[in-house]
């Protein structure tokens, strides 16, 4: 049974208030989820007053400003800062997205930043994605061909066949979609979730792959696949503009028609 409330050790408390020290007139309140594993305390939400006059346009710029100038203990993942690596996925203003490509000017009022929903928190804004990576491994995300070492030949793909992967190969596995899905929240241990199913579809749909039937068979499961109820939070949150809901729908359709 799904648990809708947060467990006792996850209840969020009111945190510290970091008052502005720059005397700036253009201040913005940023509420950030904090949890320190060494403290033994419950998570809290700290509020930072940030001077927006000297801040870059993206949410990641705000986080860096806080880390560099206000509280160096703030912890978050980031790498490329161009929406390619997917490290800085977090919940910004109630919707999952990449901090590096999300403009804070698009959001009105105070800015709320939380880790990706329904994950075990490692520290502050970092969630534990181990389960998701295991599930990703379970769909065997690599090309499977029946070629022995001697007869190995080049696998050709026509332009049309290649186009079938458009909208799927761009996925960067940032986990924004999977962690936005209520179905994944309640059944994350069994349901594969939008990110992994989109990847599954990407391999099923690859003309060079020789294991299509087996792949479909493996994913055709009441819990693994059919826990998707087309809630579409995934498509709503994908920072790359992809459509996991459509990918899952396509797998369901393939299974129904094959």
């Amino acid at each position: 049974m799904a648990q809708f409330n947060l467990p006792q050790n996850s209840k969020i408390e009111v945190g510290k208030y970091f008052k502005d020290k720059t005397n700036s007139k253009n201040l913005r309140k940023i509420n950030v989820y904090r949890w320190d594993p060494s403290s033994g305390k419950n998570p809290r939400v700290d509020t930072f007053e940030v001077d927006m006059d000297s801040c870059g346009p993206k949410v990641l710029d705000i986080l860096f400003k806080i880390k560099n100038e206000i509280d160096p203990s703030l912890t978050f993942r980031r790498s490329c800062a161009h929406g390619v690596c997917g490290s800085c996925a977090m919940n910004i203003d109630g919707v999952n997205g990449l901090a590096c490509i999300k403009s804070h000017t698009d959001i009105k009022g105070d800015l709320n930043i939380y880790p990706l929903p329904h994950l075990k928190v490692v520290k502050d804004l970092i969630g534990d994605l181990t389960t998701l990576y295991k599930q990703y491994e379970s769909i065997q995300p690599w090309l499977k061909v029946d070629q022995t070492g001697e007869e190995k030949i080049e696998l050709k793909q026509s332009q049309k066949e290649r186009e079938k992967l458009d909208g799927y190969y761009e996925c960067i596995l940032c986990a924004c979609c999977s962690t936005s899905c209520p179905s994944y929240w309640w059944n994350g241990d069994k349901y594969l979730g939008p990110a992994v199913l989109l990847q599954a579809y990407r391999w099923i749909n690859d003309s060079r792959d020789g294991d299509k039937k087996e792949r479909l068979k493996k994913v055709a499961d009441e819990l693994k696949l059919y826990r998707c109820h087309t809630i579409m939070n995934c498509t709503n949150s994908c920072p790359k503009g992809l459509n996991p809901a459509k990918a899952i729908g396509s797998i369901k359709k393939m299974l129904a028609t094959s």
Partner: protein
Amino acid sequence: MENNNPLSPHLQIYKWQISSLLSITHRIVGVINFFAIILICLWATLIIFGQNGYELTQVILDSFFGKFLIIALCWTFSFHILNELRHLFWDLGYGFDLKIAKITGVLALIGSFILTILFYIIGRNFI
């Protein structure tokens, strides 16, 4: 080893989207309709038992609560029918585009109210 780290907030912080709101409404309304059909069956059964049974349901359904119940059920069925249409099209592979899904969602919601009014007017005047 059990992971005792806190769970990050989910329902508490995630912003409602049109799609997610309609999805959960579809579920709730589905459960309501399940019970509504039982009620309708009971109603039909009562009529079999003759005039007394008929008059009893008449009194109940003619009260303010009864009217509210009927109109509410008109809406729950209207909404479920229209939103189920979206699901049928999704199963056929159409309507996944974010914009289209939003438009059909809003249409289903607005349509459900129009359909409710239509049901009510038709029921009032022609049956």
